[in-house]
């Protein structure tokens, strides 16, 4: 259980600014996801909180305690890495008990065995306890990594893209599982990812990062429905939002750039667009259009089909408007 407060946190590596004046408050028991592409500073932020990197400026408070000068061990946080967090020379059991045997704890062997067994049961890896870490499948490895964090029962869980090396099905399973674990523990969890699905499905709050700065912080529904700028609008939603010059469509516009999510494009009336490709994905069918030289993607009925080259009419519905710099104006 912990509240994490970052105030004006900055970190540079040489002349590259990784985190730039970042302030964010992660409330106790929250599942906060930091979302951003490679280089947005999300992993660095996590590492600063863990104590693996030293702050250049600003402060980090864990439960009101300034941890800026504390070592990773003193901060009582657990971290799950993208990969490589299991020791290949140890068995699953040894991996799980490794954190408990650290000098930070003073547990008897019996207590360690109990805790390890309990966590192994929660994660359904009890039958693998005596396997070597290298004999596990990707999904099992990541389960054990999560288990290594769980055994410690820390104040704060930090997760750095723990699912990104897994295949789609496993990711979907573990997403639900992580959400359940979070709900069961009531723990504070800070999760870093570039995958918008993970962010949307698991987070209570999403922090969208752009070049080391916090672009927007809010619930998934807020971020999706009410983005502050083009950058944030483009981070959530598959297919991606179409950002177009407003004048392509007739009528009054509240800004020079119009943002249309695929579901906000109405077919049948409006301006002419040429079909470049129909993509049947099974549960949805995407229509790729060419609107006066601008590529547009919209969704159509699953079994609808348009031959390439057909011209259809499209118009906006509930559009978002942005100014020339990309800032939301309506």
């Amino acid at each position, binding site marked *: 259980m912990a509240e994490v407060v970052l105030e004006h946190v900055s970190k540079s590596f040489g002349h590259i600014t990784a985190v730039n004046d970042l302030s964010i408050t992660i409330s106790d028991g929250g599942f906060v996801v930091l979302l951003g592409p490679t280089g947005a500073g999300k992993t660095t932020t996590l590492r600063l909180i863990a104590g693996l990197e030293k702050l250049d400026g600003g402060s980090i408070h864990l439960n009101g305690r300034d941890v800026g000068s504390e070592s990773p061990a003193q901060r009582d946080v657990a971290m799950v890495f993208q990969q490589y967090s299991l020791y290949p020379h140890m068995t699953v059991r040894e991996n799980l008990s490794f954190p408990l045997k650290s000098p930070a704890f003073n547990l008897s062997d019996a207590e360690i065995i109990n805790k390890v067994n309990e966590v192994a049961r929660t994660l359904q890896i009890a039958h693998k306890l005596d396997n070597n870490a290298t004999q596990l499948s990707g999904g099992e490895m990541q389960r054990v990594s999560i288990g290594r964090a769980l055994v410690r029962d820390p104040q704060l869980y930090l997760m750095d893209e723990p699912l990104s090396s897994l295949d789609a099905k496993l990711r979907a399973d573990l997403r639900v599982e992580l*959400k359940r674990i979070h709900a069961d523990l009531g723990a504070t969890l800070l999760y870093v990812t570039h995958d918008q699905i993970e962010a949307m499905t698991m987070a209570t709050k999403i922090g969208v990062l752009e070049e080391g700065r916090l672009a927007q912080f809010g619930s998934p529904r807020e971020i999706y429905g009410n983005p502050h700028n083009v950058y944030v609008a483009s981070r959530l939603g598959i297919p991606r939002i179409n950002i177009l010059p407003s004048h392509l469509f007739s009528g009054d516009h509240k800004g020079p750039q119009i943002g249309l999510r695929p579901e906000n494009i109405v077919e049948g009336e409006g301006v002419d667009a040429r079909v470049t490709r129909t*993509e049947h994905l099974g*549960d949805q069918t995407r229509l790729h259009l060419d609107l006066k030289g601008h590529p547009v993607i919209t969704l159509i009925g699953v*079994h609808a089909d348009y031959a390439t080259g057909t011209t259809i009419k499209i118009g906006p519905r509930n559009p978002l408007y942005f100014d020339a710099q990309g800032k939301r104006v309506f």
Partner: protein
Amino acid sequence: MAEIVVQNVRKTFGDFVAVSDSSFTVQDGEFFVLLGPSGCGKTTTLRMIAGLEVPTSGQIFLDGAEVSQTRPSERDIAFVFQMFALYPHMNVRKNIAYPLVSQGLSRAVVRAKVDEVAQILGIDHILDNPVSGLSGGDRQRVALGRAIVRNPKAFMMDEPLGALDAEFRESMAEELRSLHDRMGATTVYVTHDQLEAMQMGDKIIVMNHGVIEQFGTPQEIYDYPASLFVADFIGSPSMNFLPFQGTVRKGATQVLIDKHTIAIPELLEDADGELILGVRPEHVFLTKNSGLPAKVIATEYLGTSQIVTLETAKSEIKARIDADQCADTGGTVQLEFHSPAISIFNEASGRALQFDRGLMAG
């Protein structure tokens, strides 16, 4: 440009059957995807078409000529590998030019062709860079360039996006497909990613354990999976399964599961014993009326829609419903299914039963 016909091709490694008796035809200009989990034989099939493996038996026709025993160099096929396979000691231009230089073309011709290909791929500004400093996406563009520059009869691609970061994979997939649309060259593409296959393929073959499970367009495979494996493998979340025991007769239009009648399309065959009803998440509706009772375990918000995980007496079910619809975790709801989209499988054989589908509603 070429039509590829694979006829009764089989490949064994010792006792291990990598590909068992496969036949299919890749039409001229098609983007053809071989899809399946690792070890299903898709890569071996691709390598046999390219000439990197020799089939144990069967024939492969390229534009009508039987090529199964000829060397790769005699087939005029380009191969794009997952790990790019660029020559690290050469710059981008030399990498792309390499296949032409080995053909003995004049330097002026080589230069012109390389420039043309680089332009198509949008890498003309990095032609003189060493390949070691390139991003994953650019590396794969260079690898593609090396394949395109020869103007081969067909392209073989072995998970070309597999080594890219997930972030770039989708945009690179789009790029690759639009490149195909412009060039129209026959392409055989191997992947284990069903979304990639659905997104890019004109036709898909789903393979498992060296056997072709299904062949068809992406929508056909999604709507009418021929087997349990395909139903499970395609779609994210995958198809929901409700196991039940019973006897169904030809002409039946409903089944009974847990005392609940569920309407199905008209059956064209009899079946009995252990059966499995399959329904896609978007064809599951949460109602307050009569239906299969279920408990909401979790909801996952996805922007316009949400995925609801439900627990029924039979199995766990996922429903894709509108994001605005309310589903409280822990609450109880009733489930109804969009009947025309239901599939039924025989558990023992894994095969789907035949229905008279008529026209499926979108």
